């Protein structure tokens, strides 16, 4: 039975509102946490990773790539505020691979400032995550 209602929001678009869920896997900065019914009220900082919203019975599971943000659990309402987020089916593996190659190329040059270094390292992290999610989605589609 679905217990939670989940909102996934970014600064420039709404990815989902009131998504029914039985449980969630959320990537926080201290590792992935599993949110089950009767979870305590929590506000946690998110890290780059995959957010999985598990629906009960007929509701499908939904997966999102998340890049930093906040997760708020208040009773049956969960809000995910993320800086950048994409749902599994929107991710293009080809684009992610291109981004990875570009960021890798930038990192290989020796003239980066510390800020640029952090920027491109994060880009690589995100690209890896996207490629992983896109591959999982393709594999799940092939199974069906």
């Amino acid at each position: 039975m679905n217990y939670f209602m989940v909102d996934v929001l970014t600064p420039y678009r709404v990815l989902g509102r009131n998504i029914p869920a039985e449980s969630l896997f959320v990537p926080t900065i201290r590792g992935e946490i599993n949110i089950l019914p009767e979870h305590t009220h929590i506000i946690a900082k998110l890290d780059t990773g995959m957010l999985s919203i598990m629906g009960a019975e007929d509701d499908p599971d939904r997966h999102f790539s998340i890049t930093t943000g906040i997760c708020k659990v208040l009773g049956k309402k969960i809000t995910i505020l993320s800086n950048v987020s994409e749902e599994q089916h929107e991710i293009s593996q080809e684009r992610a691979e291109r981004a990875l190659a570009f960021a890798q190329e930038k990192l290989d040059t020796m003239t980066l400032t510390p800020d640029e270094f952090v920027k491109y390292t994060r880009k690589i992290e995100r690209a890896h995550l996207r490629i992983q999610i896109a591959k999982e989605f393709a594999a799940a589609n092939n199974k069906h």
Partner: protein
Amino acid sequence: MASVKDLKKKIKTTKSTLKITTAMKLVSAAKLSKAQQAIVSTRPYAEELDSTIRTVSALVQNYQNNLLKENENKHAVLLVVSSDRGLCGSYNSQLAKKVRFFLAEMKDLDFKVYFIGKKVRELVKKDVSEGKTYKFAKTEPSYLESKAVADELSTLFAAGEFGKVFVAYNVFKSAMNFIPTIKQVLPIALDKTFQEKLKSEIPFDFKYDPSPKEILDVLIPESYRSTVYTCILDALAAEHGSRMSAMDSASKNCKTAIRSLTIEMNKLRQEDITTALIEVVSGAESLNA
């Protein structure tokens, strides 16, 4: 007095103006719906962020953040969000008027005026101390571009160069209506009475991961960036709305002008025909006599 030929030429010109204004109206209508969609997509994030900040800050004691700190510095920034192009009615002139009025009212602060969009800059640059003008790759700035502007101003604020940051923009109300507004974005003001009320409404505390202070350190700059982005989106929607209604009335005026010019041209042509006929008839009669 204009000849039939002159009038024909005038009608032709007005018709081509009509074509342009109609096309501009349609383009603005499409852009307006896109801009409205962008506002609708941004609002839930901004509202949720705001409510989370209020909740967390109400439940946390003695929190300090650079962006919340009131400071005595007399230097302030006014970021004016206007348009790059004209033909949008009184969109820019009303905002320029509001800016002038505001600067006169806040005489005790020493303002540096930054601009997004060049139209209001052209109108007020003689009267103000001009700062930077931001340019974006497209007319509609992306969230990242708006974030860069917001971060630049917050860095200056945190470094103590400015004591206050304001944004002047037109708030979108409807396609026909917008309100020139000036909003203080820094320092962020948290309503103390609201916080006390909230404290009594939430009888429990949240668990925080990591500490509430670290969470607020992330949320507060994010909320400020989201406020600046919302202001820019509002201004864009207001610009397209204003241009659409300006082009609509221009199209109506063109149609009225074409109608009256056509009537005038027809009258003139009829007069010419009548004169020619009278001449032929009187010529024929004089031959018969």
